[in-house]
């Protein structure tokens, strides 16, 4: 089971999905929310296919995935695991991402960032689900616990 403590940040945190090539060059891509399959301990990240190409190519080649996500409160986690598949996003997932993008836009707006600028960050709906099996979880919230492995399974 993916720990309950991480679920809010998974759904509402801004994320970056990282990978490395066989010759150890790294890359990452923006993620606009994520869903969880508790039965299989998998996470599906909502990605933009026009940005995710290099990250996805690495995952397909090496299988290894890192997913960092965090809330505005600084609460943050990193999941590490094995790439499973890409798939289309469901209606429920697209709706979840729309709510996520709306909340981010509101937050940035309250910080004085112009709507047209905010749209560069969250103005395009994700069109690709990238699923990986979670193997390890690390706390990344700044402070003395940062980097500690989070109990899982």
């Amino acid at each position: 089971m993916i720990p309950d403590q991480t679920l809010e940040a998974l759904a509402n945190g801004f994320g970056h999905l990282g990978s490395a090539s066989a010759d150890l060059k790294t890359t990452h891509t923006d993620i606009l929310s994520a869903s969880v399959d508790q039965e299989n301990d998998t996470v599906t990240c909502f990605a933009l296919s026009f940005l995710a190409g290099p990250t996805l190519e690495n995952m397909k080649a090496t299988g290894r995935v890192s997913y960092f996500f965090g809330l505005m409160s600084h609460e943050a986690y990193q999941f590490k695991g094995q790439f499973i598949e890409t798939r289309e996003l469901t209606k429920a997932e697209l709706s979840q991402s729309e709510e996520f993008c709306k909340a981010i836009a509101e937050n940035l707006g309250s910080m004085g960032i112009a709507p047209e600028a905010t749209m560069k960050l969250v103005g395009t709906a994700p069109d690709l689900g990238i699923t990986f099996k979670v193997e390890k979880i690390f706390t990344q919230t700044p402070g003395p616990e940062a980097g500690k492995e989070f109990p899982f399974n």
Partner: protein
Amino acid sequence: MITEEHLPALQGMFPSWMTTCSATGEPNTTVISQVWYVDEEHVALSFQFFSKTKKNLAENPNAFATIVNPGTMTMYNLELEFDHSETDSDLFDDMDMKLEAIASMSGMSGIFKLLAADVYKVKSLKLLGS
């Protein structure tokens, strides 16, 4: 490589993200509070908490970072190569002072502690999506 148009994204007003990997290819992605302009071909990153990143860089100097212009939300991807660390220099002192200011503003004074200014060579800088 780094020009005036990129400088707003290097002022620490918006978080940046960084991915490194170990010698065995295990990736690690984290958020960083600040990417500093050093010169047209180098940036510096604050080394504070991310020990896995530090460990990875000792094994493999390649890194990838995304910076954001806080005014326009324009994002840039940087391919980086770790060059060296500084713990006693003007660069370190400048970064330490700025970091403490950021920490104070976000109510985390004393938690953000600069351990070193890590200097990287910028191998490429691309507008996100280009």
